[in-house]
């Protein structure tokens, strides 16, 4: 029988196991243990169990060991915390079929078919907050400080930081990528006037207020790095043209 991943937390010296399979198994186990503990606590509150004391001891022991773990695995723990906080790892764990161990990468993102756009941002956290809080994107993966992957508006949006490893690195001639420019993604909204008013109230920079075009009305807002995002409200009755044969 396989060892309980929670055993790692019960040991006085916590072993460092770098395998993603281990991290995933541990998180699964913690999740189920927490659910089990909650059930027991509920029972205890209604007087059907006397195990609360034991649970308290176990939790204290886990916390003590967790302190050691933290000291031992500081860098790694921070990375895992970030993933947990972002929900990426949790989603990954819950989406793994029990019969199949996770394959390969420690940072696993869901595979979707969304058209992909890369934007450059100087401040990764500020950009993530902007797209998630203001425009309803979901954070799929954050690999601070250089990269994040979001989903929203039908897009997969990659955020890269100029000057850092990855897509932000300088070109062979020394040119460094930068935020800005006029090219942009377009997000369709039901009421562009209301959307712009709400965003403006929230402190978002509006580069060009609502104006009428041929097939609808649009406005341009800026993310914290100065990249444009176009908000577009199609004119009533507008329909996408069918593909030519």
């Amino acid at each position, binding site marked *: 029988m396989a060892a309980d991943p929670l055993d790692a937390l019960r040991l006085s010296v916590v072993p460092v196991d770098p395998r993603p399979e281990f991290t995933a198994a541990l998180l699964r186990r913690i999740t189920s243990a927490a659910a089990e503990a909650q059930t027991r606590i509920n029972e205890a509150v209604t007087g059907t169990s006397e195990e609360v004391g034991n649970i308290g001891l176990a939790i204290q022991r886990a916390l003590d060991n967790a302190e050691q773990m933290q000291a031992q695995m500081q860098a790694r723990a921070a990375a895992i915390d970030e993933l947990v906080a972002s929900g990426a790892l949790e989603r990954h764990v819950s989406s793994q079929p029990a019969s199949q161990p996770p*394959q*390969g*990468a420690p*940072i*696993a*993102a*869901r*595979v*979707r*078919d*969304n*058209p*992909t*756009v*890369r*934007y*450059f941002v100087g401040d990764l956290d500020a950009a993530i907050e902007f797209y998630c809080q203001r425009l309803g994107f979901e954070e799929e*993966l954050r*690999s601070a400080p250089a*990269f994040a992957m979001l989903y929203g*508006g*039908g*897009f*997969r949006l*990659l955020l890269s930081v*100029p000057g850092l490893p*990855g*897509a932000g*690195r300088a*070109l*062979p001639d020394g040119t460094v*990528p*930068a*935020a*800005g*420019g*006029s*090219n*942009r*993604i*377009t997000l*369709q909204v039901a009421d562009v006037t209301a959307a712009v008013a709400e965003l403006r109230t929230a402190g978002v920079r509006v*580069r*060009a*207020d609502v*104006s*009428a*075009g*041929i097939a609808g*009305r*649009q406005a*341009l807002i800026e993310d914290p790095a100065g*990249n444009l995002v*176009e908000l*577009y409200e199609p004119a009533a009755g507008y329909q*996408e*043209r069918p*593909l*030519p044969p």
Partner: protein
Amino acid sequence: MSTVSVRYIVDDVDAAIAFYRDRLGFRELMHPDPAFAMLTHGDLRLVLVAPVPAGHPGGGSRPMPDGTTQRPGGWNRFMLQVEDLAAAAGKLRAAGVTFRNEIVDGIGTRQVMIEDPSGNPVELFEPLRAEARLGT
């Protein structure tokens, strides 16, 4: 049918249509005005617009309220997945397409940046790991 829309500013809409159609496999949906075209590639709708004066009926490429003209270029870009980046890059180079860099192996993808005739970047990538692959 396209599900999302990206707008690129171009100097010459006809040259841009030819580039995206002949080099990257886009299909032309409409080109009703010299300053406007709509192309499609899978789920991506690419709207190509040339800068127009303030009074122009087309709303997407007028100057900003502060007078700034919209321009091609910059670094933000859409990405197209290819199965064999070296082969794709070889074909594009032979066709005279401008490359902004050489093929780079990143963490999730092998990638390269090409430019359309107006200097807008397009990133071509070949997934190196499952999470970077579009579609299943």
